[in-house]
């Protein structure tokens, strides 16, 4: 398999807390890969390490064969590796359209382009992606006034606007109305198949991740506990114990 992201022996601790210990995994190009684990098992920490949000203690991280473990966040984002936040982050005082337009890929922009305006092509793209996530009607509302679930969808649309090669999603279905979850799974799939974006997804909803992912990694206490296909993971006694033991 050709991988797009290779994590090798990555460790990260916060003071005395070993949030990630010696983690190695790889994400297959063009596929949807899952990352599960009980609360506090180090999933978000691993995402933060990958996108350069904080320096790692040791190990190596390669994106498309390029060592990125020492690069700053912006540079990694401009390489085409993007993340969404577990806490959801949008630009609260701007409306939906403006949130989309400012998410245009800056890797293709020269500084002078900043002094231009977005044309009808960009506006149409922004609107069609908002339509794609079901927020078209809300496009002129101040993004900060949207509900948490709507903000989550907006953040996803913004990520698509950026045309990433790889996208790390931190609990995309958290806070989404259960009746809308099937629609969201469908959209994530289409983002993967139609836009060709490799997805690496943290998810607590087992139904969602088992449905979507081709390969799943499971963390527990900051360590890699198990990996495999959805059915292998579902039947792995260590995974079952970790989830039951955690509560």
């Amino acid at each position, binding site marked *: 398999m050709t991988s797009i992201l290779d994590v090798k022996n990555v460790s990260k601790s916060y003071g005395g807390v070993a949030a990630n210990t010696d983690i190695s995994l790889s994400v297959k190009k063009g596929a949807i890969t899952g990352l599960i684990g009980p609360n506090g098992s180090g999933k978000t920490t691993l995402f933060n390490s990958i*996108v350069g*949000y904080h320096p790692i203690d040791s190990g190596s991280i390669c994106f498309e064969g390029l060592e990125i473990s020492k690069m*700053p*966040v*912006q*540079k990694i*984002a*401009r390489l085409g590796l*993007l*993340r969404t*936040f577990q806490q959801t*982050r*949008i*630009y*609260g*005082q*701007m409306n939906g359209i*403006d949130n989309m*337009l*400012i*998410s*245009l*890929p*800056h*890797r293709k*922009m020269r*500084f002078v*382009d*900043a*002094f*231009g*305006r*977005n044309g009808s092509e960009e506006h149409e793209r922004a609107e069609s992606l908002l339509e794609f996530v079901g927020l078209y*009607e*809300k496009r*002129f*509302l*101040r993004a900060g006034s949207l509900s948490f679930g709507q903000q989550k969808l907006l953040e996803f649309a*913004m990520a698509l606007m*950026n045309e990433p090669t790889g996208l790390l999603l931190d609990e995309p279905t958290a806070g989404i109305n259960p009746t809308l979850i099937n629609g969201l799974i469908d959209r994530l799939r289409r983002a993967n198949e139609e836009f060709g974006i490799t997805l690496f997804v943290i998810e607590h909803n087992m139904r969602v991740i088992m449905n979507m992912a081709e390969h799943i990694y499971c963390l527990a206490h900051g360590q890699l506990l198990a990996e495999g296909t959805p059915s292998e993971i579902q039947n792995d006694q260590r995974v079952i114990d970790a989830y039951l033991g955690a509560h």
Partner: protein
Amino acid sequence: MSKKFYLYSALIAFIIVAPFAFPDFKTQLATVWLMIIVALTWDMTGGQMGYNSLGNITFYGTGMYVAAVVAIALVYDVGEYNNAFGGGIYVFTNQQYFLGLILGTVAAGLFCSLIAVVIGFITFGLRGPYFAIGTLGVAIAAGELVSNWDWVGGGQGIALPVFPGDYDVGKVMFYFLFAGTGVILFVFAKWLYSTRFGAAINAIRDDEEKAEAMGIHTLQYKLAAWAIAAFFVGVAGAISAFQLIHFEPLETAYQTINLGIFMVVCVLLGGAGTLWGPVVGAILFHVFKEVTWNYLLGWQWVALGALIVVTVVYFQGGVVGWVMDKYPQWFGLSRVAEDVSEDEQS
């Protein structure tokens, strides 16, 4: 030709006629423009980008000094001139005066942009209150450094040549220098906020970490925004230097607690993060200040403090924000229609 066109034409006409219609208020009107310039530029980083600088006065003071030094250096030795402090016979021909005024002003703007980039490189690592205090520290330090530097007149400051013509003509000229700079700045800001650049600095204000995560060159934008602001403040400082003829380092140039704070109050009063807010705020503030300074002598600072408290507690959006909230239809805000449909749905 829309309503807007007539509105702007009327405004321009008023700006041109004002110093002749109110001949006793030429200097007052010029000061209003100075306030508009420093408020609009403060809002560029404060309101639009979320970086509340308390050190923009650094560019005002530095603009004064750069302009003065350039104007003097064109004709005389700067150190000798300043140490004589008006004592020697230093004559400037008309040509030398105006050349000094023009070159000094341009140099002041450019130099201030340059130091904004240098200071920004260090201080833009700070966030929130730390940035405010960090930039205030820069302003205080700059004032102290300059007041101990004999080459530029030390604590005495610099005395520049007087406008070589009729006293009243001079006043009109300084009015138009400030007004021209203010109008150019306003048009420039209006354009800038409509570009991707405007969107990027708004993004930095709303969530800088998100902007970084989306690959936006945040530092470049922050430096560019501050450099633009510094350019106009530097130009305003330069014009002030020639207008005031004599200026001191701490009381006039690097006047942290006066103009340095007033510009922030203007923006808060008018409405941060809007194009018109700083303009409206600057005008209201100047009127308020003149009235209290003339009629409430001894209590003027108390009145000013009360104004700040009332604004911050009751009108956080400022005058413009408050009006926008009350009468959104005046601003063609599509928000209205959307809000209604939102209410119907829920």
